[in-house]
């Protein structure tokens, strides 16, 4: 889409037209996304603050090293990379849907919306697997001299400082075992809270995209004469992708 050639000296604020050369709905979607950006930003920055304020935080390469159907293989960053690519790809199909909408090509819009919806459902499935794996996980923790097996939940964090090798051998265990002490409780709340809030946005995005698909198929946008609704849904979907890029950065990469 090329930049609009707008004549210089256009009086934008003299009334009778949109001063941003955009429809009310589109501008309002942008401002809603701004507010949502500040909400997610606040969550992520508060996560950073708490993480900086403790001496030991869970190592993401230890916590997030599982992959579906790979058993106990140590694959740090692998699953989350898959999730990132699924979301990026669904973003691309969404842009292509908007592009087809500009050409008033209904079949094209339908095709790309279906692919975007599948991408969204794929991401949600991956996130569901990740959550289940975290909550039902069994990681050995040394609590008050007893070895327990903890999953990662909002009340239990089995990823504190590792038990030193000497203590392990004293207890009659192999010095190479990964046994930790309980870590900061905040980890679970932040992880599940932020990824859950994001996942909720993905879910609502998928629902909106399904509604857009149905409306496209029923010919509502053909009747209206433009596919701007698809564009607005696209803005929301890209925002969801963008938030994931930052969640991925804060939780898994740094």
């Amino acid at each position: 889409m090329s930049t609009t050639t707008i004549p210089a000296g256009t009086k934008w604020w003299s009334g009778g037209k949109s001063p941003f050369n955009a429809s009310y709905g589109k501008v309002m979607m942008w401002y809603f996304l701004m507010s949502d950006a500040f909400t997610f930003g606040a969550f992520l920055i508060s996560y950073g603050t708490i993480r900086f304020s403790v001496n030991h935080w869970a190592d993401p390469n230890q916590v997030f090293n599982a992959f579906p159907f790979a058993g106990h293989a140590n694959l740090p960053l692998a699953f989350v990379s898959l999730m990132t690519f699924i979301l990026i790809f669904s973003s691309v199909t969404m842009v292509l849907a908007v592009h087809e909408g500009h050409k008033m090509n209904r079949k094209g819009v339908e095709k790309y919306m279906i692919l975007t919806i599948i991408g969204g459902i794929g991401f949600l499935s991956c996130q569901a697997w990740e959550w289940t794996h975290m909550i039902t996980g069994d990681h050995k923790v040394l609590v008050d001299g007893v070895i327990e097996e903890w999953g990662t939940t909002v009340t239990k964090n089995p990823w504190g400082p590792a038990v030193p090798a000497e203590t392990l051998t004293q207890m009659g265990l192999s010095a190479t075992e990964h046994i930790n002490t309980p870590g900061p409780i905040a980890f679970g709340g932040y992880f599940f809270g932020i990824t859950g809030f994001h996942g909720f946005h993905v879910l609502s995005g998928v629902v909106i995209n399904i509604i857009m698909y149905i409306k496209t198929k029923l010919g509502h946008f053909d009747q209206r004469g433009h596919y701007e609704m698809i564009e607005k849904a696209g803005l929301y979907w890209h925002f969801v992708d963008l938030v994931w890029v930052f969640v991925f950065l804060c939780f898994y990469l740094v």
Partner: protein
Amino acid sequence: MSAHTSSPEVTFQPEHSGGTKKIWKIFWVLSALTIIELALGYFLYAKSGSLGYPVIISTKIVIGLLTLAKAYYIVSVFMHLGDEVRNLIMTIVVPLILFVWFIIAFLADGESWKNLRNTNAGSKPDATKQVAPAAVNPGDKK
């Protein structure tokens, strides 16, 4: 040329030139940036025992900058903000500059809380910071 009008508020209709080439090109750019980030992240993990603090921090900053680049491409190309009227772009970008202050202030705060906790509000030395004993060479006056 299809006469697709959005709402009547839009005075100058955007010209939508044919190709999807730009879209796919940006997809590859985003993928490449992601792969570089993952490689750097993996580097930090694989060498976690042997890297000094400055290397770790600089690598994390580079990863952060790559993420900002991704954000720029997604917002400017995929969300088409780059094609909008300049004033609209400014109403979105300028408030987000607040995030710079936001991030610096709160991370500094977190660091300060850690120091306060470790030193019991400044009343005892920080046990987590190992102070190297002064090097004693033969012949030094004590």
